[in-house]
């Protein structure tokens, strides 16, 4: 059962006395584990899990507060989603966003972290600089980008025009709107993920690299044989958390494009928000949210299984 913790060595050939002692030890540990987990679980159960359960309950009803209805619908809301053209389009948009955003972000932050780790001149300054976008609220970031990317009076368009490059009305053009929104997301979160990966890199002992260097391995080889394998726990964390959050992207779309132009950037959470807060159809909105949740859950479980083996390898001694 202890697949998530680097467990004890249950190897054979242990004397019986030691076995009893080990079992008592296991129990003490288990009790300590429960004790340590309890405070968090209390908070999460009351304030996060219970609202989730309530939302699930809402999704089974025709819950529209303006109409004061609460009829039980069973799974009708869920069935409705699959026939809803706008839901399907939102789903597609969300997938497009995720498939563009997550690889760019993960690869980008990995590369940047590795280079900064080489500690070239002023790398510390760049580390802080790249982290800066994460410090500002997304709403402000979106407002700034909306100004800068304006096809007529935005700085970016002016610079591009001066360089003789073709200028597109980034946020008003259905072809470029999604890319602009992805770019804003990457800009915002690159430094954040870079810092996480850096903390993972920093926990790899220098001695391993020194040994490899003595053996004649170049920097690239060192990266692939030492850094990458030992970064597996960190990378799995980065990929999984970013996947989970990218499926739920909302803020920059709400401020920058409001799902437009022509619904090209309307993602699932935006549509869910619209149905919940503009149409007041909380039942249907909750149902869609749970469909979204199921997708994320399945994906995450697959990822966790895939990473589990590398995590066990990551437990080195």
């Amino acid at each position, binding site marked *: 059962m202890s697949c998530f913790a680097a467990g004890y060595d249950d190897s054979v050939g242990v004397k019986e006395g030691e076995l009893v002692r080990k079992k008592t030890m296991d129990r003490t540990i288990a009790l300590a584990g429960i004790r340590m987990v309890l405070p968090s679980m209390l908070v*999460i159960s009351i304030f996060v899990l219970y609202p989730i359960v309530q*939302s699930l309950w809402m999704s089974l009803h025709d819950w529209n507060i303006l109409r004061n209805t609460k009829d039980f619908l069973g799974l009708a809301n869920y069935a409705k989603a699959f026939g809803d053209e706008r839901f399907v389009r939102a789903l597609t948009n969300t997938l497009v966003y995720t498939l563009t955003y997550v690889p760019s972000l993960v690869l980008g932050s990995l590369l940047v972290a590795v280079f900064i780790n*080489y500690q070239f001149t002023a790398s510390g300054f760049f580390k802080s600089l790249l982290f800066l976008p994460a410090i500002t609220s997304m709403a402000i970031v979106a*407002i700034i980008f909306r100004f800068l990317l304006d096809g007529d009076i935005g700085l970016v368009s002016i610079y591009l025009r001066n360089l003789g490059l073709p200028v597109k009305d980034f946020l008003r053009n259905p072809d470029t709107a999604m890319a602009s929104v992805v770019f804003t997301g990457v800009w915002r979160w690159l430094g954040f993920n870079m810092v996480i990966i850096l903390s993972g890199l920093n926990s790899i002992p220098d001695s391993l690299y020194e040994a490899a260097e003595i053996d004649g391995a170049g920097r690239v080889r060192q990266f692939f044989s030492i850094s990458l394998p030992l970064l597996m726990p960190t990378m799995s964390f980065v990929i999984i958390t970013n996947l989970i959050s990218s499926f739920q992207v909302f803020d920059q779309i709400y401020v920058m494009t409001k799902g437009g132009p022509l619904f090209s950037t309307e993602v699932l959470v935006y549509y869910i928000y619209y149905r919940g807060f503009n149409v007041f159809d909380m039942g249907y909105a909750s149902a869609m949210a749970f469909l979204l949740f199921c997708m994320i859950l399945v994906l995450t479980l697959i990822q966790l299984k895939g990473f589990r083996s590398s995590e066990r390898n990551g437990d080195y001694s």
Partner: protein
Amino acid sequence: MKLSRKANLAMLVAFLAIGFIFMLPFLWMTLSSIKPEALIRGNPEQLFPTRVTMGNYVSLFSQIPFFRFLINSFIFAGGVTLSSLLLDSMAGYAFAKLPFKGSSVIFILVLVTMMVPFQITMIPLYLIMNKFQILNTYAGLMLPRLTNAFGIYFMRQSFLSIPNELMDAGRIDGVGETGIFFRIMIPVVVASLSTLGVFHFMYNWNDFLWPMLMTNTVEMQTLPVGLALFQGEHVMEHGPMFAGAVLSIVPILIIFLAAQKTFIKGIALSGIKG
């Protein structure tokens, strides 16, 4: 790992280019905070102001109770961060190193909480807070955030990469599990803790949706909610908003730079080198 001159230069140049792209929006925002409103929308958009004014900062302090919002943000973000660091690391450690029956299922449950959009769960949560009569209070604001799934996951990963020898040594020495946690494990993960602390502080400092929902009065509102007062229906006062954004970055930046120092100290102390 020493870099050759060539490699060093190449990286520096590459990062200067990347750095410019990253800097530009900030530079524009900071410079706009000292431009008169008209120049922010000016024709053409210009990076550097032709006219400078401190009027936006003056508006910031005279039109909204900026300091009150600042203090509320500190209390909210600071309190939640401290609590979360404690609870997240305890839970993360347990999931990583203290197996018990069902711990992996519960861990998945924790991850699950990250997968439901807040826009949906905030209504039931608001209703719970209303029932407890703690709307518009610090308690109401902070209780749901005392721990955080992201933090638990993050700390678990940190603890996973610690060799078991350290725990075994503690157990042989007869130090209780709690003792092992506080006296052996925590010092080792100080770097991760300070990183997570920055993240938690940052996230709650900038959070708009939750404080907006929970607070009604100026006494309780946080900075992002306060800055939204400059967002008119038809007219947005960009100048004071940017001024507010610039000022609200300062505390986090300070905390981030301070955390960097612990970062380096933490690595030296963890005894991992060599």
